[in-house]
């Protein structure tokens, strides 16, 4: 990231016809922020008497599994990306002197690493300007090498395996806290709940195992006793054997590293076996699906989600509303992160005043973007800085916000004492108004929590 912003802007100027265009591209404070909240976006202020401008199509690759067991998440991601692209196009952006039209190239990697590299190559061949994806770490990691070799910026919305950004590729970013960050927070949270003993279940997937390992470390550091470590797999439906074993160890809490499709039945079977421990899981179980599959058995259980709840973010509730209205379905999991990833990419292009990967890539690293999921800034590896993690509790079939932990970026943490009080009411799917209230309250309390958050970050 050696280029300065001005340098990267320079070719844009030479190529462009009018200086006014450069103003939009390189202008900083004057630049109107994308009005993501407003469905009918106000077009960017166009310069007077515009000559007919060239139109440039910016191709963004999007990769997620559209087939296989995680296909429902893939579709969710795709929806998030589409929503972002449509909004961007509605804004009629101009970058580097050209009208920008974003086009989404959707590819399926079937969550299979081999297909992952093939579709990655396809996107490289198609000379995409950037890639959003992939969904799984297993496909994201091998594909990231191709993008790195081709110099194409890649922002994964959901690959949480730490290795993805540890490979040293300048092109790899993610807009979500990784497993290390999340596992740590979960461990700390468990300790805060006053439990003494904990049992851990992981599904032996890259995600589940990574999360469970980090949780284990954090929990032990926090003085919890891990009384049992059991395993299942991401295709299992029957967990009674391991739960029976766990029951015999009488833990206060069961931590599950894995996805909703197993987590729901797992919670149910815990109840059937009379295992009364609290349940805690990561973002994989922080879904409507989990509650649908677990039914009443999920009541009182906890889960975490990277970022800050949509309701707590300035643009969150609006996003949720738009999404539900457009697709007539609940957000599954990562759609908001995908949306943010697209927006971050577009934002970087605007700042660089270029859609050329080589030119806007340095800008991606400098991102400071107010997304729907978090204030997005990257560290030197490309990881989300701070990586706030929010905790939720399932109550009466809905996710209710508990608190946000971690996160170094002060603005990202809109959590406040009052807000926590409100949060019980501000359940997922609750009226947007309620959420807005929470947001206001949160804004006021930013300062008071800043210190606490800093302390938390330093402890890590």
């Amino acid at each position, binding site marked *: 990231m050696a280029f300065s912003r001005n340098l990267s802007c320079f070719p844009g100027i030479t190529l462009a016809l009018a200086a006014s265009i450069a103003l939009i591209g390189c202008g900083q404070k004057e630049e109107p922020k994308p009005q993501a909240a407003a469905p009918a976006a106000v077009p960017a202020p166009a310069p007077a008497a515009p000559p007919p401008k060239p139109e440039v199509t910016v191709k963004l690759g999007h990769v997620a599994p559209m087939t296989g067991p995680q296909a429902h998440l893939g579709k969710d991601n795709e929806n998030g990306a589409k929503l972002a692209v449509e909004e961007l196009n509605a804004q009629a952006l101009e970058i580097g002197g050209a009208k920008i039209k974003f086009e989404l190239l959707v590819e399926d990697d079937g969550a299979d690493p081999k297909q992952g590299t093939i579709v990655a190559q396809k996107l490289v061949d198609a000379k995409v300007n950037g890639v959003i994806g992939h969904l799984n770490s297993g496909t994201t990691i091998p594909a990231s090498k191709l993008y790195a070799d081709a110099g194409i910026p890649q922002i994964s919305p959901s690959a949480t395996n730490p290795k993805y950004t540890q490979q040293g590729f300048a092109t790899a970013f993610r807009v979500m806290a990784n497993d290390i960050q999340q596992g740590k927070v979960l461990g700390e949270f468990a300790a805060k709940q006053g439990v003494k003993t904990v049992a851990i279940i992981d599904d032996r997937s890259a995600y589940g195992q990574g999360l469970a390992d980090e949780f284990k470390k954090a929990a032990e550091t926090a003085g919890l006793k891990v009384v049992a470590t059991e395993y299942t797999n991401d295709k299992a439906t029957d967990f009674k054997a391991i739960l029976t074993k766990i029951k015999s160890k009488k833990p206060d809490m069961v931590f599950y590293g894995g996805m909703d*499709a197993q987590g729901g039945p797992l919670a149910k079977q815990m109840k059937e076996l009379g295992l009364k421990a609290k349940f805690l899981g990561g973002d994989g179980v922080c879904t409507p699906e989990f509650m649908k599959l677990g039914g009443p058995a999920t009541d009182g259980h906890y889960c975490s989600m990277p970022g800050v709840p949509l309701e707590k973010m300035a643009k969150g509730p609006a996003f949720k509303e738009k999404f539900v209205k457009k697709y007539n379905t609940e957000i599954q999991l990562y759609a908001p992160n995908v949306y943010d990833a697209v927006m971050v990419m577009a934002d970087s292009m605007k700042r660089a005043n270029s859609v050329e990967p080589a030119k806007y890539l340095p800008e991606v690293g400098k991102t400071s973007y107010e997304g729907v999921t978090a204030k997005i800034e990257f560290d030197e590896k490309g990881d989300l800085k701070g990586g706030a993690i929010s905790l939720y509790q399932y109550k009466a079939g809905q996710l209710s916000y508990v608190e946000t932990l971690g996160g170094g970026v002060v603005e990202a943490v809109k959590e406040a004492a009052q807000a926590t009080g409100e949060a019980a009411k501000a359940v997922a799917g609750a009226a947007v108004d309620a959420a807005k209230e929470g947001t206001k309250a949160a804004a006021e309390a930013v300062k008071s929590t800043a210190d606490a958050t800093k302390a938390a970050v330093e402890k890590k």
Partner: protein
Amino acid sequence: MDIFLQQVINGLVQGAIYAMVALGYTMVYGIMGLINFAHGEVVMIGTLVTITVVTFLLKAGFPVWLAGGMGIVAAASVCMVLGWSLERVAYRPLRGAPRLTPLITAIGMSIVLQNLAMMIWGRNYMTFPSLIEKTQFEIGGAAFTNVQVLIVLVAGLSMGGLLLLVYRTKLGMAMRATAQNPGVAGLMGVNANRVISSAFVIGSVLGALAGVMVGVYYEIAHYQMGFMLGLKAFTAAVLGGIGNLAGAMAGGILLGLIEALGAGYIGDLTGGFLGSHYQDIFAFVVLIFVLMFRPSGLFGEKTGDRA
């Protein structure tokens, strides 16, 4: 001790489900020597059909028992037709073809059915409407529900019924004769096609029942649920000696128990080295050992080569 008992119950119920599916495999294998790899998908479709019908009827205000009953009937009917058509369309034309040909067809059919199911029912996991109010019992510190009892009962009854059918009825005798020598059975006046079709139909009905059981027990369903279940059940059938009804039952129960007890105890016995992350291996390891000493499974006939 209560843990042990609990694990036995866990294994027994899981095993009963394996056994139900294994019976379907064995039914077809016994007669045609064909591994109907798509059987797991038949089970899956049984579950999904039940969900659709029951959910619809419950919404329409039908009482639970009627909705449930009609759901089961619908699943059985759909699976019957499915099993019959599978045989008719995919397998019958391949009689006499090289041995692996129908196996590939079966795999192809399995892929087709999965993707059809995905197109019809979508990619999401579905919840199975609860048909039976779950009541919990406890014996010696081990918890179990009425649903679990019911599952074991239905599996037992199914096998009993099947044994009666195969060993006490004319159709059963025709089935056994066709299995041993279809040509000569034809000479006796047996319509081999009809017998084979009926084996598929019966196997599929068992599959549908198993599907309902899985649904009622776990209360979730997914278009890919059939694959692993089918694989496990097939393992169970081989463990017992494929083609042998009692063997399928025993193999299923045994497999369930191995998995439960393995997950429950091996970890402690090996100092944590072989914990429940190896749960799926235990069954295979036992299978391999059994087959090393009894190459035709526990109950399979010794295929002594009459040279």
